């Protein structure tokens, strides 16, 4: 049995399923409510498949007003709501419980306003991350946060998890690019925070909502900062036969005053798998850095010249600058497909701890040791520029006991991250995956104040209640809700 538990469903809610579904059917068109057990099953997990549970029902509203009606109805029936963007969470952020209604944002689609002069775009929250850039790129703009799942993941989920990506070393994560939201509060009230202007007045509620994992409100529209696209960008591949030297190289580049837009890291197991999918021409080595710089041709040359000089001092086994836009695209395609491509060889569990850059070499070494101890392979691919690691623990989901071993291994890695001054999650969110490790990073008071913040927004604890915090800590609040 998995080490991660989910709360027992509320029998009362389960018994009232028909009544609840009927109530939802009254406020939404028929094709927006899914309750057939054969159909709800497709919503039983997100991209963290190790944990799954069919929800009571799924609703797919098309407007903010419909979302508000759903929230009111669920509150009236005291049914938990689990918001779901595109279901690409690697942390189980949209994992339902049997007594919950999944509120999917997939049909909240469309660009509402594009304003280049003032450099913002307003979208419905169900649009995918990449489609935001897609809708402005012909006019020379882009939306900066670029999680690896950007092809599929929704802005709604990006805001819930405060998603990052490879290029946030320069451009920041979601919260740094979010100007405003329209959202539905737990009582169904529709409110707006921020807008095209910067720094909303009063307490920074926008900053609080971003990254609150769908526990404080349901975001239905977002105003996002868009930026003019750089004239060009080019990655350089730097391969080392030693992880520690690669870590040194990252620190040296940053200290030199150059700020690349991205510094990515892949180890040998990862390179092998990804090369097989993307055919990007990655060199086979122990530690590969992908360093990308932006600007005009001359600016790129200048920066790459400085970077290669730093790298050369560390005797890399490979140093290759991308020579064409196609090659660059392949290099990034490989990097962004790394998690999925791992599926070709085995099941995996993807972690997301962040450590101070200075602790990267130690942490990598420790992960290697833990891999031996737990008897499971691990591949590393991550954002080295900001210390956000993504160890992929490989296991066989069909072998009894393997999942539990992977879970223990993962917990040990994350504890290591916290011990060296880092954190449990850099961009994927706590979800259920790291929920029970929150005690390692926070003491009782640190947690209690967060729970109180949730009390303010969601007094009945109906929004995504079984996530983020250890279950025993939230028990009384959740049962009060049920």
């Amino acid at each position: 049995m998995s080490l991660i538990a989910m709360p027992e469903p509320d029998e009362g809610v389960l018994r009232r399923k028909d009544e609840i579904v009927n109530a939802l059917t009254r406020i939404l068109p028929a094709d927006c409510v899914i309750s057939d057990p054969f159909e709800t099953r497709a919503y039983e997990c997100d991209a963290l498949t190790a944990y799954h549970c069919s929800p009571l029902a799924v609703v797919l509203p098309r407007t903010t007003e419909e979302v508000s009606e759903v929230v009111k109805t669920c509150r009236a029936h005291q049914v938990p709501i689990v918001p779901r963007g595109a279901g690409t969470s690697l942390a189980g952020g949209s994992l339902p419980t049997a007594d919950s209604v999944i509120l999917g944002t997939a049909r909240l689609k469309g660009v509402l306003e594009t304003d280049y002069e003032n450099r913002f775009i307003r979208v419905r929250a169900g649009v995918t991350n990449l489609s935001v850039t897609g809708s402005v790129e012909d006019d020379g703009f882009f939306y900066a946060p670029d999680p690896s799942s950007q092809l599929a993941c929704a802005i709604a989920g990006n805001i819930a998890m405060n998603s990052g990506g490879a290029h946030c070393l320069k451009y920041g994560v979601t919260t740094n690019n979010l100007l405003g939201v329209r959202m539905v509060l737990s009582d169904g009230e529709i409110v707006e925070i921020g807008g095209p202007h910067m720094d909303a007045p009063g307490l920074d509620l926008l900053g609080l909502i971003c990254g609150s994992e769908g526990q404080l409100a349901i975001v239905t529209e977002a105003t996002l900062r868009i930026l003019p696209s750089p004239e060009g960008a080019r990655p350089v591949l730097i391969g080392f036969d030693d992880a520690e030297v690669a870590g040194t190289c990252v620190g040296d580049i940053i200290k030199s005053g150059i700020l690349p837009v991205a510094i990515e890291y892949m180890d040998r197991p990862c390179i092998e798998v990804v090369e097989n999918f993307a055919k990007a021409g990655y060199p086979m080595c122990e530690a590969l850095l992908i360093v990308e710089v932006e600007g005009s041709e001359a600016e790129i040359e200048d920066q790459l010249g400085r970077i290669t000089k730093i790298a050369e001092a560390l005797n890399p086994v490979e140093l290759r600058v991308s020579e064409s836009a196609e090659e660059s695209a392949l290099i990034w395609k490989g990097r962004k497909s790394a998690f999925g491509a791992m599926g070709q060889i085995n099941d995996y569990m993807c972690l997301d701890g962040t450590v101070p850059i200075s602790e990267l070499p130690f942490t990598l070494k420790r992960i290697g040791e833990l891999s031996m101890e737990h008897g499971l392979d691990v591949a590393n691919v991550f954002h080295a520029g900001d210390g956000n690691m993504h160890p992929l623990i490989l296991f066989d989901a069909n072998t009894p006991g393997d999942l539990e071993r992977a879970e223990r291994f993962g917990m040990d890695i994350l504890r290591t991250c916290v011990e060296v001054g880092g954190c449990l999650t850099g961009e994927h969110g706590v979800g259920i995956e790291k929920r029970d490790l929150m005690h390692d990073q926070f003491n009782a008071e640190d947690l209690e104040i967060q729970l109180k913040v949730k009390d303010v927004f969601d007094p009945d604890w109906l929004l995504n209640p079984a996530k983020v915090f250890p279950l025993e800590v939230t028990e009384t609040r959740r049962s009060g809700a049920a």
Partner: protein
Amino acid sequence: MTDDIATPATEGEVQDVVRTARADATPLEIRGGGTRSGLGRPTNADRTLSMAGLSGITLYEPGSMTMVAKAGTPLAEIEAAVAAENQRLAFEPTDHRALYGTTGEPTIGAVAACNISGPRRVQAGAFRDFLLGVRVVTGEGEAIKSGGRVMKNVTGYDLVKLICGSHGTLGVISEVSFKVMPKPEATSVLLIEGLSDARAVAALSAALTTPYDVSGAAHLPKGVDGAPVTMIRLEGLEPSVAYRADKLREALSDYGEIAIESDPARTADGWAYIRDARNLADGDGAIWRLSLKPSDAPKLVATLRDQIDVAGAFYDWGGGLVWLKTPDVGDAGAGAIRGALASIGGHATLVRASDAIRASVPVFQPEAPPLAALSRRLRETFDPDSILNPGRMEG
């Protein structure tokens, strides 16, 4: 400010001061360097909690671009430390001493509490965007932490953002960790003279929509010599700045003659002048900061000039930030300003005015009722007895 000052030296002592204040029902005014006590609504605190005793950089890793410092650490000490490693605080915090006529040393804790940021906000972000972690003593005397010292962290709610800019009304910040950035090799400023407000904001928008990574975009209708001047800043590696300055001059050629200033001292002084609102600081008058959609700014200023006695105005953030000087009498123009903003969106903060006006006019833009209710409940959660900077953010 009162004469009753507590100066704790440790976070534990801060907790003691807060607990005592709570027990005595004696509200506290939290004070860093005391350079911006005129910011916000006057509090009616009986006792001052000075953070000067919690001072010092506790960790600085240039290779990780992170620093941890106690709240009372003077900003000057921090800036000197990062400059020694060729780094800087990219959010370019405003120094309010000229504006308020204060002396003393601004502290990092106060910069965090007020989310102070300067001209580079338009490109790099505000302090909220660089703040990685805080330690805070709540109104109940609990010491809590949020965030940490790593650059990416989504573990738990982002209380760091909530605390940043809460003006001490949620808790007393005892320690902050934040991201520092490499100091650019070179800076160039493009200068255009004689533009009207509307034309200038159009030029700034044009500059900000190029790929040339503009890090400052301001317009002074009355520059130092009394004539309008528009300033656009570029920073980075030397060859890159030279290249971008050329390209940008070309792109903006329709807006008139463009001079390029690259002298380090003069460019730094020029932007400090914008950052600290020195264009308006001297003399009497109330000072406002208006945050709005850049393209709305010139028209709004023109409308206000018709309605009230605008003694001066200038634009930063490409027009997204308007500094405005109005007579320090009556409502200091609040009715007209907020009335004009109501139809176009945005918000206005009364940065400087007499205590009497700041006590009667909402200093911060009043929030929509549901948001105001959430904010009130959050304050009650962090500070149930309302002993920390009571009323500072209220209308």
